[in-house]
């Protein structure tokens, strides 16, 4: 697959999920069951991993714009970062995102310029940022905060 094809794949996925909430968001928040059948931690993993990935990839993008940071190092760092987070994306029920990232990880080796790498990074950053916004927007934070504050006072 060429760099341009990979860029187009990620761009297309980002466009699809920008305006319409991806189905995997509902799955992440309510359908994936963890210990003792609760879905809370899957939701937490989905929210935190997408947010962390967006910020980490933003950092990699900043590094890529520096002189003296080699393409092969950046590719290795990107691949490792994505692969490290795959488990948490899976536990978070984000199966479609996992499939996309697996595809990206396979193709990273073929990226042959920093410009292409930066473009792919920017697409991934936008993707994870928007996905996080979808998840964050459906989390019942107000109620969770209320329970947390109450429980911590009781403890």
């Amino acid at each position, binding site marked *: 697959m060429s760099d341009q094809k990979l860029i187009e794949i990620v761009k297309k996925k*980002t466009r699809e999920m*920008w*305006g319409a909430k991806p189905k995997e968001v509902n799955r992440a928040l309510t359908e994936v069951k963890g210990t003792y059948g609760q879905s809370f931690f899957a939701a937490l993993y989905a929210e935190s991993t997408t947010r962390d990935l*967006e*910020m980490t990839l*933003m950092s990699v993008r900043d590094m890529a714009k520096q002189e003296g940071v080699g393409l092969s190092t950046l590719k290795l760092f990107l691949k490792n970062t994505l692969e490290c987070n795959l488990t948490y994306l899976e536990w978070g029920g984000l199966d479609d995102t996992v499939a996309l990232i697996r595809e990206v990880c396979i193709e990273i080796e073929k990226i042959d310029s920093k410009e292409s790498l930066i473009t792919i990074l*920017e697409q991934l*950053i*936008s993707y994870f*940022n*928007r996905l996080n*916004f*979808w998840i*964050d*927007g*459906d*989390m019942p*934070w*107000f109620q969770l905060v209320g329970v947390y504050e109450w429980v911590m006072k009781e403890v």
Partner: protein
Amino acid sequence: MVRQIQIEIGNEKAVAVLLEEDAPKTCEGILKALPLKGGAIHAKFAGGEFYIATPIFLELENPTIKQDSGNIAYWPTRQSLCIFYKEVPGLGEVSLFAKVIKNLEGIQREGLKCWIKPSTPVEISEIRTPTGV
């Protein structure tokens, strides 16, 4: 005439002026991306602020930390457009590029609602025939 944008959130519409002298590149970048639509997420640490995701990359410009009520800024780290509906001491630098001049009260009402139930639909668009300030 100073260029203006409209912010629609929930049942409210507000008008903001662009601070083009202070943040020309940010204003241009934001204008090119309009209309912007998304669900508002409330800030978890900063205070009276909500933000929406944008698909654009802009460098930090006119950096500010402390925010007045009605300030609108671009947050490079999170590719987000931030609307401050209360005075906020701030946690990091963002690119201040606009200021609400009409119906800040409506923005404040919706901001509070967003804290209780996030993901209120927001649409930001350019006002082609700006009203007088």
